[in-house]
């Protein structure tokens, strides 16, 4: 078992992108998947326990060595570069793509209420979103979705890790309250 852990550490370090469990299992073909899973979990716990400055984190469907967030200030001191930033327009656009994907530009614009050409281009350049196809309607608009890199950059295991939109909960709660109080102004907007 000890040896498996050492191999996994080496595999994760040698991989440029987050390393999926499947690939680890493909390499450790003699080992049962369950055991590989346990080894990864134990390793992760060990790094945490010893309060190492680095940890094995699950992002974008794979495992990767990453520094702990508490270390950010020190690394910034070392690198002496400004961290990458996204404008509010880019973040809003990205959030809409992330939650509503796959979708076309006009759908993003109807939510934001403004033209989104500039933020879209920026997000494509940064490879946070990508073209996933074309919609089969007149004009064949381009359909956008998020990339694996989006998950890597935002430290997400997968898209399901995104928190549910607050709007949904609020609308439901509000709907219930309204039913009780004012009968007449009920909004039964069908979607």
């Amino acid at each position, binding site marked *: 078992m000890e040896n498996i852990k050492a191999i996994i550490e080496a595999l994760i370090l040698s991989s440029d992108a987050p390393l999926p469990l499947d690939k680890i299992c493909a390499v450790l073909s003699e080992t049962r998947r369950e055991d590989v899973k346990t080894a990864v979990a134990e390793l992760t716990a060990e790094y945490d326990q010893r309060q190492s400055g680095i940890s094995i984190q699950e992002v974008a469907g794979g495992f990767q060595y*990453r520094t702990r967030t508490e270390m950010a200030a020190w690394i910034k001191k070392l690198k002496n570069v400004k961290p990458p930033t996204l404008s509010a327009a880019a*973040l809003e656009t990205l959030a809409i793509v*992330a939650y509503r994907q796959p979708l076309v530009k006009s759908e993003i614009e109807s*939510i934001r209420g*403004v033209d989104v050409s500039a933020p879209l281009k920026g997000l494509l350049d940064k490879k946070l979103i990508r073209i996933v196809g074309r919609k089969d309607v007149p004009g064949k608009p381009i359909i956008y979705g998020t990339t694996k890199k989006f998950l*890597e950059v*935002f*430290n997400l295991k997968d898209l399901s890790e995104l*928190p549910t939109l607050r709007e*949904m909960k609020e609308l439901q709660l509000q709907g219930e309250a309204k039913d009780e109080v004012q009968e007449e102004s009920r909004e039964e907007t069908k979607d």
Partner: protein
Amino acid sequence: MDTQTENYAIKLDIFEGPLDLLLYLIKKNEIDIYNIPVALITEQYLQYLNIIKSLNLDLAGEYLVMASTLIHIKSKMLLPVPEEPTEEENEKDPRAELVKQLLEYQSFKEAAADLEKRPILERDVFTHASAGLQENTGKENEEDDELIEVSVFELIEAFHRLVSRTDKKELLEIDVEKMSLTDIINDVMERLTREKNLTFEELLGERKDRRQIIYTFLAILELIKLRMIKAYQTSAFGVIRIFPAVES
């Protein structure tokens, strides 16, 4: 008024559009989003637009569209509500659509803020591989061993890069029609390679819509021009038989 104007000018910078401005006004006035006093909000909204105009700043069309929407809602609100609305007459609150839009936008604004708070690579967490937020550098690399992930976007970026490098303007003239034509050219060549020779009718196959006929014809013309196929006719008005120009 001067100081007030300045305030507005500064505030304007942080608005992401008319919806954002509306949300700001709702918050500032501590208004229930489900029960917006349209008259008040419209008035304040228009005030903002006037100030922007008086500062000679250009105003995005979206702000004006929203202004007219607000005015429209306001006028609708003034109409008397029927005393006992029947099932069919059950008119929706004229504000309903706007409220829905505002809530939706607000929720994504919050989602964006949540995203921003996550541990972000190259800001809060770092890894050994340079998997950071690098811009697409488009740097040239002739070596075949540099591996990269590929998407359609990258494909077109690569082509775009080449075009700008070679400065061949005509390369830009590629559109959807041309691409569909290429599909048909490919299809024609594939079938000719398999069948050795085919008639125009046979090439058309089952699907015979106008577009298909025109495109197949254009494909044949293109292929003849490219000297990839040869067309033969036994007699005037006879069947045109098409052969690959060269045996493969």
